[in-house]
């Protein structure tokens, strides 16, 4: 029973949305599917508690063991506690006098710049990865290099200065070769995902319960 109930639940939960897609039945849609959606949100919210407990445990163990980088674990635990306290007890948004509550202040002036910084690192990493990857090793790699150069020049105003047709060529590369390759991969991946889903639906593959 310990194995059969989860498998049965998984089968029902995966089959009902498929039925609802083809058969416009209010009972399946409203009573079952919408309920499943709601359950998913509730379960995910409670699973977050599981995650938080794991995060606290792992970092406490690190501090106790004086593992490499244990100082960072102290920072994690302190900032986690502070933000949780600000969020739960300190209010959010603006005060009447226009000043910000601590949670919002931290969000705007600490979290947001850190996020933007992490994303902007991509520019640096793209540069170093391109330097390594784009080499004229063979014909295919050379074509790849030419395609990359066209897009990089065509996507900046300088492309127009070089020749008015450069942006159009870049747009053509995006519209046709890019789209063709994307579609090929998307169709294959979608079929792979569908096949994987069928395996999960019929219970052949059960990664959700520790059985790969």
């Amino acid at each position, binding site marked *: 029973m310990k194995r059969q109930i989860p498998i049965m639940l998984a089968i029902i939960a995966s089959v009902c949305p498929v039925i609802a897609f083809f058969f416009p039945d209010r009972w399946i849609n409203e009573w079952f599917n*919408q309920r499943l*959606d*709601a359950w998913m*949100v509730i379960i995910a919210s409670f699973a977050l508690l599981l995650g938080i407990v794991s995060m606290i445990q792992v970092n406490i163990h690190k501090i106790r063991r004086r593992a490499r980088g244990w100082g960072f674990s102290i920072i994690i635990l302190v900032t986690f506690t502070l933000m949780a306290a600000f969020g739960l007890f300190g209010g959010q948004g603006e005060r009447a006098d226009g000043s910000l509550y601590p949670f919002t202040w931290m*969000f*705007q002036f600490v*979290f*947001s*710049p850190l*996020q*933007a910084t*992490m*994303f*902007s690192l*991509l*520019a*640096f990493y*793209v*540069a*170093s990865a*391109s*330097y*390594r990857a*784009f*080499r*004229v090793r063979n014909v295919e790699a050379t074509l790849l*290099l030419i395609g*990359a*150069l066209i897009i*990089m*020049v065509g*996507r*900046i*105003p*300088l*492309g*127009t*200065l070089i020749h008015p047709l450069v*942006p159009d060529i870049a*747009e053509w590369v*995006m*519209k046709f070769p*890019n*789209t063709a390759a*994307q*579609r090929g991969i*998307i169709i294959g991946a979608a079929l792979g995902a569908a096949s994987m889903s069928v395996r999960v639906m019929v219970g052949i593959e059960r990664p959700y319960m520790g059985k790969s």
Partner: protein
Amino acid sequence: MSWADRLLFVDRRIIFLFVFVGALVPIIAPIGLGVTVSPPVQQVFDRIEEMQPGDAVMIAFDYGPSDGPELDPMANSILRHCHFRGVKVVGLSLFPLGGVDMAIARMRQLADELGAADGVGWVNLGYKDGAQAPMKAMGENIASVFPTDANGVPYEEIAMLEGLRNYNNFEMAISLATSILGEWWINLVNAQFGIDVAIGTTAVSAPKYYAYMEAKQTLGVIGGMKGASEYEELVERHYPQAKGLSRTATMGMDVQSIVHLVIIFFILFGNLMFIVTRGKKEAK
């Protein structure tokens, strides 16, 4: 190791330094390069342009602070365009980490620079968790998903929202999206409810939306800072009152241009060293 080998395996920090300087110089000394408008952006602009005063557009702020530098400028331009056109904007967010803050900041900016009042030209409905579930539910009744706006005012009491019951009442939906949310707007909202969907996204994500655009599942794509600068250009071309307003994406294109050139330089330089070292190896 020969000098060519050494240059071929140049320390990545040297590349980082060049990129940093390349990004810094245009910020200190702007170049002011021109903007060429591409069809995917023009299509989005034209769709709003053909709307009548009083029509409504739904804008989903499905991004967080990390994507702000690319998506904030396009949000500003679209909001300005809607304001000049007299089109009502209903903003919302389905992205958990900061989406609602992005919506608040952009709409506040619209109010500050053009005097567009909350509840008259625009309404911010706030954030809803679950992404796909609210997308589907809004096809029936938006008020069931957002019973109040972000300020807690009940949906039914906001005069601007009168008659805006579900997607049927909107001319189009625009998702300023990161992650998988843009694809869900296309696959769920456009496919199931038929409303026109346009996507504004980061430059990295833009290529995947071309396949949807070619299949007519999205009517246009505004990709990254380049797309945002094009939209800024279009708004300024068509609406003289937009002159003098900030054009952060157009300014950012100077940075992007120089950094692209730095990367192109390194790619060509790397290949030159690669050919030199290969030639030497073959000679040996």
